[in-house]
């Protein structure tokens, strides 16, 4: 067990029960006692203890080994030849981290006929782009991509590798982490370098009820998947110099144990992906009838927005699963989120509360969605929304 408590040294100052986020420390006479079934060994108590009576046993860090790893890498995902927008976000954030470290930023581009994106990545901040381009990488498969990434990582030793927290990114990164025995932090919304030059990875947990700062002190590279849309891509600079290196990685078909037989797009004509849109118009049960979705669709068209739905709307089959926002759907972070007839239960908020700007229209003044709304209108969507649409039209027309 990793927690050591020295009862004799303890002065009973009671700082640690307050610091514990997991309710695992209780007053026990004039000292404390620990409920180890609740304890997750996060170390908050160790940090506040003024007399060092609490010690979390941890592994030793091999600094010589760690010093061998250098540079920040981003895995830049493509989909059917298209560069995903999260790739540019990673390169932008990666640039910042590399600058803080005084190291280089390398973007890794794997796929088939994707070399044309290398310049774009350089313009957004990459110093070097490693291009792995071959037929076997045309479809994303866990096996082929894991082989490519692990051989690059093992031979070149980066100190940080970032992936987009997309379906493929969250499939690939843990496979690589397990093969190389590395730490991996999922779905980060914050990344920073601390004084000790380690990567501080911040992520929401428990459905967004709590934030955790995670480090990978013992192993390199430090790896994280990064939630799309959180770090906004910067403006491209077409004068930025950078180096493009083509790397040949042999993967034989027998090493690829899954086969993609067919790809089916569920993108509904004119329906943008909620994860990549700058604006989302999201409807909840208040919309009452699928025919009424016409109204949000009109607004979405004007604002070039994606159409989203709360879980009940998707469960009823009124919108495809790809458009569901929330804990069991997609996590989104647009510039503008418009919630129509959505109550705002915690599972819904978990998927959208980090949006830059939230508008809510709901007839219940006490709906929890108002607690995260920057602008709330208490009213009936069927009377308010047509007016909003007319007003937006008027403003856009006058430009």
């Amino acid at each position: 067990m990793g927690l050591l408590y020295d009862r004799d040294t303890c002065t009973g100052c009671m700082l640690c029960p307050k610091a514990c986020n997991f309710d695992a420390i209780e007053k026990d006479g004039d000292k404390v006692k620990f409920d180890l079934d609740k304890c997750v060994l996060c170390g908050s108590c160790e940090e506040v203890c003024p007399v060092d009576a609490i010690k979390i046993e941890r592994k030793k860090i091999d600094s010589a080994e760690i010093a061998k790893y250098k540079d920040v890498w981003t895995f830049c995902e493509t989909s059917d030849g298209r560069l995903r927008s999260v790739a540019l976000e990673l390169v932008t954030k990666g640039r910042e981290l590399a600058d803080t470290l005084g190291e280089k930023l390398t973007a890794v581009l794997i796929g088939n006929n994707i070399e044309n994106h290398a310049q774009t990545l350089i313009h957004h901040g990459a110093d070097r782009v490693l291009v792995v381009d071959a037929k076997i990488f045309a479809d994303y498969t866990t096996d082929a991509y894991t082989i490519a990434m692990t051989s690059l990582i093992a031979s070149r030793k980066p100190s940080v590798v970032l992936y987009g927290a997309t379906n493929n990114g969250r499939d690939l990164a843990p496979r690589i982490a397990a093969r190389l025995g590395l730490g991996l932090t999922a779905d980060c919304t914050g990344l920073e370098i601390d004084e000790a030059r380690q990567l501080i990875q911040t992520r929401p947990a428990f459905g967004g009820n709590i934030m955790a700062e995670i480090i990978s002190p013992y192993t390199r590279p430090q790896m994280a998947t990064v939630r799309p849309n959180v770090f906004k891509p910067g403006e491209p600079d077409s004068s930025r110099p950078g180096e493009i290196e083509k790397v040949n990685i042999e993967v034989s078909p027998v090493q690829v144990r899954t086969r993609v037989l067919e790809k089916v797009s569920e993108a509904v004509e004119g329906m943008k992906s909620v994860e990549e849109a700058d604006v989302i118009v999201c409807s909840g049960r208040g919309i009452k009838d699928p025919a009424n979705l016409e109204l949000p669709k009109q607004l979405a068209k004007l604002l070039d927005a994606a159409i989203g739905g709360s879980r009940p709307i998707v469960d009823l089959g009124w919108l495809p699963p790809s458009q569901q926002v929330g804990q069991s759907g997609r996590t989104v972070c647009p510039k503008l989120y418009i919630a129509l007839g959505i109550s705002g239960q915690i599972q819904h908020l978990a998927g959208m509360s980090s949006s830059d700007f939230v508008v809510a229209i709901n007839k219940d003044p006490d709906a929890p969605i108002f607690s995260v709304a920057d602008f709330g209108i208490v009213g009936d969507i069927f009377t308010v929304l047509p007016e909003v649409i007319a007003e937006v039209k008027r403003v856009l027309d006058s430009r």
Partner: protein
Amino acid sequence: MNEETGTLIRDGVPSILNPFDELAVEAAIQLKEKHGGEVTIVTMGPPQAKDALLKALAMGGDKAVHLTDRAFAGADTWATALTLAEYIKTMEFDLVICGKQAIDGDTAQVGPELAELLSVPQICYVRKIDISEDGKQVITHRETDEGYEVVRAKLPVLLTATKGLNEPRLPNIMGIMKAKQKPFEEVNIEKLGTDPDRLGLKGSPTQVRKVFPPEKKKGGIKIDAENPAAAAKQLVEFLTKKGAI
């Protein structure tokens, strides 16, 4: 969450079977009903995780394995996957089905990490599972960011279950009664036989440095829509000013 102390309220919160794992259990039971075989439910967790195992047995699982020991505490996804792998390695299996993600950590990492440690291929986020006629392959619908893809692999395979795969059944009284008679194995560190330095916190390459409540977003402007046209105007003005339109 206790707003005053900023701590998680765990007392009185029953330990539940994670919703995505319910999908996984249901899928396993349906496959058994169709193709035969045996369903083993495995979890690593503190004593209260037993409730979740009993529920899965009540749904129709055949036996349960509870990996539980103080030495497993503080495990990150890698150490969790390793602990599970150390046990599952000793079994014969065609399919390992995990949930897409847990509802506490929701990392979606344990499935792929476990697949790697078991040296089997993985298909993550499946919405549909079919077994080929010869019983040797699995054909799945795997959710992607665009929709889904049809993916095939030879057994054994690890799958992770996502929404849409099935409607998990509710255990009935009979099921709940029978669950208590079914084989239930508890496995501690000695029984697992793994070096304790590789498990739990000590075996975890990641470390939680700090936990804190998220920045609470305060509600902003809230207006009444007695006059809908005026409210709409105010909203659009506001959005224009903020550069959102």
